[in-house]
């Protein structure tokens, strides 16, 4: 078949509102558009004039799935502007908060958003009838991540305790011990998840896109480090805008992120595992060996396997952090000063950039936020461009599902990314 029409008006099982339109004529792609019709909410616009200490609570509302990432990135950017160095306890608690969100978000994506594609169901709701134990495992893991977020952050969606230079309240040792027991018990569930993801029959589809992730001096980077890539990028957060640019593509509503002098790039679990494999927890590396997966791997469909390894890693590293936490009340005072601050963290879906310009009264003068999905949109289209020739012989229905799966590989979070997109609502 040399002609194909893929048209998905509402992308399902992704966060936010997007559509896909592909037209192939005589074997050539005539049109390929990943449309984002999520309306912009103008966070960067209305943050101007707000006070710095409101920012973590406001940016949290960019995304209901990764609120802690937006908060932590904003807080670290503000601290960078104020010249604050936080305590090791605060760094540990923040890492725990970020890891808890990886556990929640990764189990949500693996089981509820991605797996139905590979097992042949339209949703986890219908999948539950035939795969109840797997769904129950998913619910248990996701609840564990949520409970850990709530313990550290006060609430799972839009946590409240993380603040500039510390936390407004600390968890009790008793509660930490109780959740550590549950984390310990979750190891077999996480291992089962790795096995399940590694056993999936994934399309054979690889191309060497540039993979980008944070890398830190020690440990598997999540809240700090330099932004590095498989093509040699190696920059500090403050250098971000010198290297990562956005451009308006004529046939797309989206501004596309690209690396100056090169092109699109991929962020997220697969990029992180590719760049930091040897920093994964010992158990996660052992799990990878046990199921026979090797990295680096440039097949974007392997994202689900990388995500499952990070799930295991998150559980193991959370246990290590809880084990070393002393939990002392600390002095969290600091001085407000004018300046500009930058931070990059690894949200569940990949690298997240925040930057603020703050005046001497602590009022925001400029905000610049680029979410993981904003980084990925360009690369998703590049994947689709290369993938479509593989599905030309399939029925329109099957081809559509396959193309949707290419998008869901990225676990896109469209609400997060909408603010940077040129909006035009086009529904044919």
């Amino acid at each position: 078949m040399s002609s194909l029409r893929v048209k998905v008006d509402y992308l399902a099982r992704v966060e936010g509102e997007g559509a896909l339109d592909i037209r192939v004529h005589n074997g050539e792609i005539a049109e390929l558009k990943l449309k984002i019709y999520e309306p912009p909410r103008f966070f960067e616009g209305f943050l101007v004039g707000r006070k710095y200490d409101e920012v973590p609570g406001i940016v949290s509302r960019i995304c209901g799935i990764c609120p802690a990432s937006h908060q932590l990135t904003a807080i670290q950017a503000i601290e960078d502007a104020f010249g604050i160095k936080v305590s090791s306890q605060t760094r540990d608690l923040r890492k725990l908060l970020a890891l808890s969100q990886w556990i929640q978000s990764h189990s949500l994506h693996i089981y509820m958003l991605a797996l139905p594609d590979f097992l042949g169901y339209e949703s986890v709701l219908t999948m539950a009838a035939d795969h109840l134990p797997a769904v129950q495992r998913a619910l248990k893991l996701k609840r564990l991540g949520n409970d850990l977020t709530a313990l550290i952050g006060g609430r799972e969606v839009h946590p409240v305790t993380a603040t500039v230079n510390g936390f407004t309240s600390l968890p009790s040792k008793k509660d930490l011990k109780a959740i550590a027991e549950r984390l310990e018990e979750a190891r077999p569930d996480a291992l089962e998840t790795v096995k399940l993801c590694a056993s999936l029959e994934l399309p054979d589809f690889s191309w060497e896109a540039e993979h980008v992730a944070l890398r830190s001096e020690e440990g598997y980077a999540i809240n700090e480090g330099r932004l590095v890539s498989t093509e040699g990028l190696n920059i500090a957060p403050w250098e971000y805008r010198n290297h990562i640019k956005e451009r308006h593509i004529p046939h797309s509503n989206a501004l596309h992120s690209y690396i100056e002098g090169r092109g699109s790039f991929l962020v997220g679990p697969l990029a992180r595992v590719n760049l930091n494999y040897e920093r994964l927890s010992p158990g996660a590396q052992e799990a990878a060996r046990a199921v026979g997966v090797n990295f680096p791997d440039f097949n974007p469909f392997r994202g689900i396997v990388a995500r499952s390894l990070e799930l295991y890693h998150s559980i193991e590293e959370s246990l290590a952090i809880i084990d070393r936490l002393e939990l002392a009340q600390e002095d969290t005072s600091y001085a407000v000063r004018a300046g500009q601050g930058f931070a990059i963290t690894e949200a569940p879906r990949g690298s997240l950039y925040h930057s603020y310009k703050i005046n001497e009264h602590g009022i925001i003068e400029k905000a610049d936020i680029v979410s993981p999905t904003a980084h990925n949109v360009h690369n998703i289209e590049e994947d689709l461009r290369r993938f479509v020739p593989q599905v030309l012989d399939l029925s329109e229905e099957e081809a559509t599902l396959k193309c949707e799966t290419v998008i869901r590989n990225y676990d896109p979070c469209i609400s997060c990314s909408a603010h940077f997109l040129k909006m035009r609502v086009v529904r044919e």
Partner: protein
Amino acid sequence: MTDKPRVAIYKMSSCAGCQLEFLNLEPVLLDVVGAVELSYFVMARRQNAPGPYDIGFVEGAITCGEEIEKLKRARQECRVLVALGSCACFGGLPSIKNWIPERVVESRVYQNLEVIESTKAYGIDEYVKVDAYLKGCPVDKGELVEFIKGALLGISPHLRPHSVCVECKLRENVCLFVSQGEPCLGAVTTAGCGALCPSRGKVCDGCRGPANDANAESLARSFTEYGLHKSDVIRKFRKFAGLTPEFSKGAEAV
């Protein structure tokens, strides 16, 4: 076919956190999907059944003409229409932009304003009749389950009309405002969160909107007596529910 009530979940301008709260009902999620049919839930399923529906939950503020049309269709196809979370109830955080000239706020984010079709951000009752309001940013899971149970039993859910202060006292918290002078909105904000923020050492941000009989003007004046600048008081009230008459009065009192 099933005789379970058919539920639809609509997304407007939002972060998806309120609809995520359905999936965050992990311990009872399988019970919930056993009791109601989640017929239209795009974030969770690929095959979404057309209306009519018994209950429609609308998440998000209304910020463009497309959404007004979508909302009106939702109203037509749902017997009961629920505002899910503070964006749908009062415009939520996106409504902060309503006090900045539209083109100014847009130009801070975009260069080509021709393609931007954004309007002021409103709650859904600006455009359609709403049968119930589940407040909060995000919506409280306990209230969500209470509402679903009530709908199944045909009884009114017990949604709290009093202030966060009442719940805070019940939890025996030390008052952040009285004892430490921290500007807390708990006295004028609807309860139902269990005084979540003050219990964790953080002042109430007013995310659940005004409580019954809220005297925001008096609280605003107290804030200035405690040394808050006028602009800080205005920012506090023009945040999650700045369009409500009560919080408007608070912002205008100083």
